[in-house]
């Protein structure tokens, strides 16, 4: 069988499993079901398995993507249930199918950033934050691939933003660029902390909701 794509949820306790640990975990989850992944042909063969967009430790997601290849034939419809019997708590496979688009065409992320305020949401916070992130430029420090810090204007990477207020929490529903360059949604909160320090939240929770292609449709 050729390339396959698995969609899964990562939340709760599993949010703290790091990228490398998640790779190891998935290799074992497949083996528990007796599914042999295709291996590279090099001197040190390793299973061909990769995550489309590694999720930062601590963030949750409804739309994680694992691309893999197997040797034998697989009933893709039955696969999620099979894998779920051997998962750690907080990871749940949702669907498996042959990939429609290559990962490089994954254009945007729909996400939710919860700004938590222990006493209450400061008055006028929603308006000020909407104005900040919808305004001209928002320059913050971002770690580059070379581990150094660089000033980056994240405003062009914010494609859509909607705010919702609930007791003790201000919810930012955002669509941000996924890659080239991509925006870690946690940086929306970092921008608030930099430009509107009086509105700094007590805690920030991030969850990916959906992955989108260039046309804004669900990435498959």
């Amino acid at each position, binding site marked *: 069988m050729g390339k396959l794509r698995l969609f899964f949820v990562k939340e*709760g*306790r*599993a949010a*703290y*499993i*790091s990228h*490398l*640990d*998640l790779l*190891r*975990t998935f*290799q*074992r*989850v*497949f*083996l*528990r079901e*007796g599914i042999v992944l295709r291996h590279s042909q090099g001197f040190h063969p390793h299973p061909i398995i990769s995550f489309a967009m590694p999720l930062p*430790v*601590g963030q949750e997601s409804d739309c994680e993507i694992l691309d893999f290849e197997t040797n034998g034939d697989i009933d893709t419809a039955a696969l999620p249930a099979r894998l779920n019997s*051997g*998962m*750690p*708590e*907080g990871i749940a496979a949702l669907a498996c199918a042959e990939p429609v688009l290559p990962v490089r065409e994954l254009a945007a992320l729909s996400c939710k950033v919860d700004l938590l305020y222990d006493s209450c949401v400061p008055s006028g916070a929603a308006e000020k934050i909407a104005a900040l992130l919808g305004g001209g430029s928002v320059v913050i420090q971002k770690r580059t691939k070379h581990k150094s810090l660089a000033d980056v204007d994240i405003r062009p990477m914010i494609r859509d933003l909607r705010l919702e207020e609930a007791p003790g929490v201000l919810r930012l529903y955002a669509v941000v660029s996924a890659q080239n360059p991509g925006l870690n949604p946690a940086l929306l909160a970092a921008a608030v902390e930099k430009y509107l320090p009086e509105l700094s939240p007590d*805690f920030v929770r991030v969850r990916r909701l959906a992955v989108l292609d260039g046309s804004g449709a669900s990435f498959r």
Partner: protein
Amino acid sequence: MDRRLERILPKVQKPARYVGGEYNAVMKDKADVDVRFAFCFPDTYEIGMSNLGFRILYGVMNDMPGVWCERVFAPWTDMEAELRGNGIPLFALESGDSVADFDIIGFSVGYEMAYTAMLNMLDLAGLPLRSADRPGLSPLVVAGGTAMYNAEPVADFIDLALIGEGEDQLPELIELYRRAKKEGWDKPRFLRAACRIGGVYVPSLYDVTYHKDGTIAAITPLDGAPERVYKRVVHDMDKSYYPARTIVPSTEIVHDRVTLEVFRGCIRGCRFCQAGYVYRPVRNRSVDQLIQYGQEAVRDSGYQEMTLASLSTSDYPGLVRLCDGLSAFCEDHHVNLSLPSLRADNFSMELMQRLQNGRKAGLTFAPEAGTQRLRDAINKNVTEDELTESLKTAFSGGWNSVKLYFMLGLPTETDEDVLGIAEIAKHAVHTWREYASNKNRGLRITVSTSWFVPKPFTAFQWEAQISREEYERRVKLLREAITAKAVTYNWHDGDTSFLEAILARGDRRLCKVLETAFRKGAKLDAWSDCFDLNRWLEAFAECGLDPAFYANRERSRDEIMPWSVISCYVSDQYLWHQRELAYRSVTTPDCRTQCGGCGASCVEGGECYRG
């Protein structure tokens, strides 16, 4: 997940260690549970989850209806600071509930350096350290594991110690606790009843008096406590629990693989080795059962590495049959089978070569001493010829990296013995020059020495540890004698071994030293980056005790040892005789060749070694 925990996890390293939820972690409905057991490992998650005994007892307890055993590990320093800073008490991984709310808190203690971690965990749970300051029945604080063969240094902190293997004993204790809880017993009543369970030692039921010179005058049992507490053992390994379905951590741990325990005990009788004496007699698991467990464990876990564990795996009578029986399955499932604890003989080398399938991982040999005379004295019956033969096989088979382990400061050791270590390394280089199949890859020989620590229940329990100055002199002597470029010499840090020698044979007066050192910041002493001997030396001075009294004093034959209430069935007479043989460099045959009459056979009711 706990909201407070969620706030601190982003601030600590490797947060996956603190959240639980792994595959096969046991979750139960609290409504169906009447005894909750917080199983504490006084070291980090990565170390504790690598411990097979911990996994066995976790499975045994969770198989009991109405009992929920959960895991607790020592937090690393960053996590500890966050817990304390935010007023979050130590919690169990499965439920996230506070440890203080459990019925029983049980520590698995394998080594003395973990003692302060025990205290730190009790403190993080918000509990008083001393048993006397916890008057209620719950939480009951118990401790087991190899270090508890001398529980005296922690006697004031624990309510009771479990001596020996816990598979049968722990369920008996839990059943007694269940009854006590239902009938509303107080703690003294429970402890008086518990000390009648085999292998249960209740320190508070023994009064210890001392001579003027600091040695023990008498240990008197109170309230009908037994004169001697005998260790518990599992009689039939084939009927004992094996955790074929066990937790697979979602983050990397030290021993991240399937561990098959092929047998318990050891036939060799090395005179310095505590495990070799206290785990007697030898009990094998059958080959067929091991093959079945191995396959089941690989299928369930998804691991692709399996290791055969025991104190000396080459001594397993069915080793070839076991490896043959597993090899087809391992090949089919791409499982790498590894055999640590092999002896330096040819049989083992051939086996290694067959298993390695061309891969050449490092080889480790432990001759322990530099001359045949000293190896005979410690009863490490490996000859230099055997070692040379093994090295020949290894080098001609393509290995080019060898580690050699030795101890410095063994009883009767002379400078000649120390220099003998350098000779062995030199011979290894010569052997490589003569036999290496591929010299282009170069040679790496690592010589490591540790500082001998005399342990209770060994032939050397009466010995003094050599002084710090003398140890350092011998290290220097050896360092200067090792000249070959291919040989790297590592020596063990002296501070740790010195404290280990104090604690290993300490009495219960050390409890206040432990508490003082803990208050000064000692909490993860097994980790060199957290350990500071000065804290301990200050604590000794404040408590008016002399560390050298415990570490560097030779004890007389008739001295009452702090642990003399405990018995591992091996008699003192036998150990003393072994010591005398050591001084004459006379070896003792292994248990399979000839029974030495150590006394461990009593445990099986007569005959000891079968098969």
